[in-house]
């Protein structure tokens, strides 16, 4: 029977291999031992490991079976600790002995295909460079439009200021995620993170603009928390994608984090804002955004209906008035009232 090689790797932080031991299996000897002692086949420097801690058997079919040889701390397989267990299968190849994470690799392991380091013409649309460029152009166009719209006197300066500050902010954001990728995944992934930021921004800026335009075009009712909600969803999407590309956490966990973080931050922000609004008697919740009249598609409501609805403002205002906290505003001494 021909010799078969098994690799035992000591995993460091972020999956980095710190040491690698090669074990050769021959004929009927398909078992080797791991422990702290010199007489173990594979020696680990771990104070929490026994002299002969565990034995590993690689079956001819490629299955890896682990047994605990009576250690104090037992072995951890698939996240569970076992004491004195015999012939546990290592499905993911990861075995924890003491405080050491070991990966057992055999000739039967499934390898991911080799990554091409050039762009395949067929997948150009999914290529990060393409997405980053295309959505970057959309973002620049949106920002330039906003600058152009609001500054009838000096358009060029306004656009330059807007673009420069946006570029700076995007650079800081992308650099943060690229650094995280470098630490956790050993790749910078600049383009991928730029594509995520610009792509998500482009989609949600457009969505926000469409919703705003919709109010004008179709005479829809105003919805004051719309912008905040769109922003929170955009942030959640970006966070999910960044986490997936920059860390080892599972997609499910990334989705959970991406939902919880914006929900917590947004919820806290919304709560604080609402509380402030309760106390700000000069705040007006809605403002008008006007577009060219040719865009209007739906006819306006009747004035009669508007004023019938306006009659309901009295109980609404009374309710808000009664919900006000007590007289805690500084009075005459620091008075800024007119």
């Amino acid at each position, binding site marked *: 029977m021909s010799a078969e090689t098994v690799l035992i790797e000591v995993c460091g932080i972020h999956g980095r291999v710190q040491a690698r031991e090669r074990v050769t299996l021959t004929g009927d000897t398909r078992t080797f031992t791991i422990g702290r002692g010199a007489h173990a086949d594979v020696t680990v420097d771990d104070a929490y490991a026994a002299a002969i801690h565990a034995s590993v058997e690689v079956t001819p079919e490629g299955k890896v079976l682990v047994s605990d040889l009576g250690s104090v701390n037992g072995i951890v397989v698939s996240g569970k600790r076992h004491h004195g267990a015999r012939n546990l299968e290592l499905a993911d190849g990861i075995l924890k002995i003491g405080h050491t994470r070991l990966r057992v690799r055999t000739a039967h392991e499934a390898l991911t295909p080799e990554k091409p380091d050039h762009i395949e013409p067929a997948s150009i649309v999914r290529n990060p460079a393409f997405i980053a460029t295309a959505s970057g152009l959309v973002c620049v166009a949106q920002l330039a439009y906003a600058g152009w719209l609001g500054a009838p006197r000096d358009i060029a300066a306004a656009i330059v200021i807007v673009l420069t500050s946006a570029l700076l902010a995007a650079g800081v954001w992308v650099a943060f995620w690229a650094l995280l990728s470098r630490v956790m995944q050993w790749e910078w992934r600049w383009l991928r993170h730029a594509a995520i930021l610009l792509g998500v921004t482009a989609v949600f800026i457009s969505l926000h603009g469409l919703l705003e335009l919709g109010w004008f075009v179709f005479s829809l009712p105003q919805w004051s928390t719309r912008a905040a909600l769109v922003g929170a969803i955009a942030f959640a999407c970006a966070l999910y994608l960044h986490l997936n590309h920059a860390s080892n956490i599972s997609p499910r966990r990334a989705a959970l984090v991406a939902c919880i973080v914006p929900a917590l931050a947004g919820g806290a922000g919304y709560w604080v804002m609402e509380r402030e609004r309760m106390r700000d008697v000069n705040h007006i919740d809605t403002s008008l955004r006007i577009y060219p009249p040719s865009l209007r598609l739906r006819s306006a409501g009747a004035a009669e209906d508007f004023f019938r*609805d306006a009659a309901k403002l009295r109980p609404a205002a009374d309710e808000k008035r009664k919900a006000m906290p007590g007289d805690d505003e500084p009075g005459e001494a620091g008075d800024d009232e007119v």
Partner: protein
Amino acid sequence: MPRCGLAGLEVNAVNNGVETVSMRRMSLYVLTAASMACLAITAYAQAPVAVPSPAVTPATSENARDVLSRVRPAVIQIRGFFGSNTAQAFHGSGFAVAADGVFMTNYHVVAQKVQYPDKYRLEYRTAEGKTGRITVLAIDVRHDLAVVRAAGLAPAPLKLEPVVPVKGDRAYSIGFPLDVGLTITEGVSNGRVEDSFDPRIHYSGAINGGMSGGPALNAAGEVIGVNVSGYIFTQLVAFLVPAEHAQALLDRALKQKPGAGSLRKDVLAQLRAHATDLLGALDGAMPTQVTAGYALPAKLAPFIDCIASGDPAPDQPVHIVRINCSAKAGLYVQQGLYGGNLKYSHFVLSTSKLDAWRFARQLSDGAFAFGEHGSRRHVGPFSCNNRIVGLKGFDAGVLVCVRGYRKFEGLYDFTVRVSSLNGSKRGFASHLDMFGLEFEAGLRFIKRYVDALEWKP
């Protein structure tokens, strides 16, 4: 009508109607000065002098010294104290109008006591330095008058002369300006102010802070009015409450039973009556003015001041005409709170240089909805209704916001913003702000205001 507290706003409006940061600051400064100006003085009279009886022939003398010596015993300084402090918080003047120590003064002199009876106490001080307690008997917020009783003081009352003197008649004003001692100023009556919502006599003479509530007299020493306010940074333009209103309040005060009703309830009832009168005076057809094709509410009543202005430079991207109107009707209720007033402004935009998109943005900015500044001590937050509404000949974005008064239940502030949506080269944003009005009447007025807007190309 200018009042002590509102004098700054009047000055502001007179300048050009465009509110800037520096002007806001100035008006605040003016308010401070104006509240000082609302204080009174007492006479430090020496020898008691015979008070002219109604039988005496008037105009026996035009000499200020004579007038002062006749009325001096009847004039007191009214001082307000916060808590148990011995240093005063504010001061004004008053004068005897009936036997048994019944005195007349301004409501704004005693307003803090009326609103916070447990926090303030009132005392009088005569010219001789005699002091004693003051209690408020009756108030007239509308005419800024109050009748008070001074304990242990009963000088001969002054006679109220309800006939308003004609323009050019000699007149005198007495009080304690800026706490410097009893002062008489000499001036001329200019008769009734014609375009005032609240009745006032225009007195061309000095009235300063501390003289509020003091008497204004004719040459015969009869009271023709009560000192109430003056403009700051103007010369000798001052106002008196005509004596007929003092007489009416006095009659009411003498008839009512002691301890009847609450003064604070009176304030609310009077504010409501004033609000009703104000909107009642604006009833009927709404006059409009056409600017850039839009008919917009113009000067709705004589007591509303309107100023129209614009930037004459020819090469601007957007030409803006600003029309600012304000009713001179606000009542002083207490420090920082005025009720029963309204103002409106139109910003009419036109362009020959901007495209429809950028013009629409300029119009959006003009329509931006800032609420009129209010204090959360007095009002609750706004509730709003915001829709696109079809008006006469054009569609408009209409925003109506309402907030309630916390201590004067049934009174509301309204903020209205209307912006035209039909023009790509012309458009307007109209702002209407109303203070301290009743809900139904206020909303009815808003509806009439919005109905008056019309596209007349």
